[in-house]
């Protein structure tokens, strides 16, 4: 009897229910770490490993946070990857001329500008976001290719501070803080949720739906710009790509984003995204550690996203899904 009462009290405890979601995610993280640790104790799971996984995952989380604003409204942006590549190329180029100033400002301006273009074309042309961002992704990829002129863009050694801690962690956490404040303490956050809930009612409440959709795209662009800073700092270079190859950069941020959406009801989506990306990075590195061929990476990515969406998509009977 005492145990049951204790559990019941725990359940009703307001503090506990608020952090229930985070608890679940932490348990999942430990679980997956455990699985791979058992499978290959040598190659995987030490504190250094985990620290490096965490740093990698921060990069994806930055992108995922930006994507969150878009996906809450029911929109989609395929051009995220192309944005990262283009912004990254510009980051490398401008870092030669302007050092850190160029490294930071160029991709952020580029990313946000891309977001603005995406949002503007989406609202003016009235084309579904999936379609318009596919067309735009082709355009951004080709722009990146033209600007890079066929050469891989390298980031000068002296500007690689964001490639390791603490600079990268600080940058990422600044972004998380920004996203949290926007969601919780500004009209942007409230209206994003409102538009996602019922666009028609939101509009009749005087909310300028188009304006806030454009803002969401710009936020995604801004965050993509920051993500590209981390990407070029980690990889020390950025290569242009065509043929929709940049799509592969969309996946991991989107997966983390779905974690955020699924755990939204527990009150801290940003935290859910960060932990979620950490879990995903653990899984990927786990597969590498057990010796799976690199080609398996794509298989795992595809399967993982499918499973995550299948589990997190709440289906109301009778609603149309295309």
């Amino acid at each position: 009897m005492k145990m049951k009462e204790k559990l019941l009290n725990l359940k009703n405890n307001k503090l506990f229910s608020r952090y229930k979601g985070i608890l679940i995610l932490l348990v999942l993280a430990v679980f997956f770490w455990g699985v791979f640790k058992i499978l290959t104790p040598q190659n995987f799971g030490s504190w250094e490993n985990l620290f490096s996984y965490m740093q990698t995952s921060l990069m994806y989380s930055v992108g995922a946070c930006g994507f969150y604003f878009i996906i809450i409204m029911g929109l989609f942006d395929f051009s995220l990857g192309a944005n990262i590549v283009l912004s990254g190329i510009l980051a490398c180029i401008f870092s030669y001329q302007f050092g850190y100033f160029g490294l930071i400002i160029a991709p952020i301006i580029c990313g946000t500008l891309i977001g603005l273009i995406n949002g503007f074309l989406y609202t003016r042309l009235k084309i579904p976001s999936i379609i318009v961002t596919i067309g735009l992704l082709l355009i951004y990829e080709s722009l990146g290719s033209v600007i890079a002129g066929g050469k891989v863009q390298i980031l000068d050694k002296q500007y690689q501070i964001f490639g390791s801690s603490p600079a990268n962690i600080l940058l990422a956490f600044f972004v998380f803080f920004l996203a949290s404040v926007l969601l919780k303490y500004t009209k942007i956050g409230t209206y994003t949720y409102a538009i996602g809930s019922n666009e028609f009612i939101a509009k009749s409440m005087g909310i300028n739906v188009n304006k806030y959709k454009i803002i969401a795209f710009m936020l995604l662009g801004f965050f993509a710009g920051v993500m590209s800073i981390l990407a070029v700092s980690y990889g020390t270079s950025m290569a242009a790509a065509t043929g929709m190859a940049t799509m592969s950069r969309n996946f991991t941020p989107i997966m983390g984003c779905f974690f955020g959406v699924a755990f939204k009801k527990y009150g801290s989506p940003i935290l859910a995204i960060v932990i979620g990306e950490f879990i995903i990075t653990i899984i990927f590195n786990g597969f590498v550690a057990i010796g799976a061929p690199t080609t398996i990476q794509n298989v795992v990515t595809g399967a993982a996203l499918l499973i995550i969406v299948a589990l997190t998509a709440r289906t109301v009977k009778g609603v149309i899904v295309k």
Partner: protein
Amino acid sequence: MFRFSRINEKGASFFKNNNVKKYAHVILPLVGLVVIIMIFGILTDMSILYWKNIKLILNQAYVLMLASTGVFFVMTIGGLDFSQGSILGMASIVISYLSFYNIILAVILGVLTGAAIGAINGFSNAKLKIPSFIVTICTMFLFRGVCSYLTTSSPVYATTDISKYNTMNLKILLTVIVLLVMFFVFRYTKLGITIKAIGAGETAAWFSGVKVDNTKWLMFVIAGAITGFAAFINVVKVGSVTATGGSQLETQIFISLVLGGLPISGGAKVRFSNIIVGVIMYSILNSGLVMVGLETSMQQLIKGIIFLIFVALTIDRESIQVIK
């Protein structure tokens, strides 16, 4: 100012006229086709119309035409399918392996491979209720990974005497047969009429007794199967499969169908001619851009811009209530 607004009103009311709107989907692509032929004709000093170049263009078009037909059916019910490239790769690998034993068996198993992947797509979309664009992007990635894995050490080769099938007559014949069959299904069978209703009003179709879930599933299977068949032509042409076999096919299909005037959300205004006009337009555009000497990135830039322009012009805004 006053006169301008009057002309604008007249122009606007011209386009609001139902008859014009109804045929815009058919007329616009045809006009676009003529324009593209003219533009590239001029840019290449008419050499694009030489027989040898037309043959080249045609050669690229078979696989695209077939694969687009399959996706056409999926898009008619309002879905999207981005996995065709990976399906082509997988089916090509299967056909290549089996080409050493029996060619008929190889083709049949290639089709079944495509159908199987299509079945996964269809199940996830129709039964698990996951949006089709997410499902097919995931399967695209997944099977692209499998293809890369199977071709890690070397490309997969088909038997060398498979090239005896690589004649223009056979390729045209096979393509035309499949097109005719699918056209017939689309226009004159219960299935064909039903899928347009699902695309235009899924709920109402359900209330009229249409088995919506099963039909959706079937469309993905058909799309996969047709692409599986197209893989045969692919293998016959190329003779082997690499890790990137078939990649980008999905973009090409998508752009072709849009150029052909296919409404993105499917439904009642869909026409079979969208496929044919669209693929021809895309093939000419593609080859034309190459012939003009543009590098790949510029080609892609132009394709992207034209794509956006065409979608903006042909999208049926009234049938989509809330555009997301």
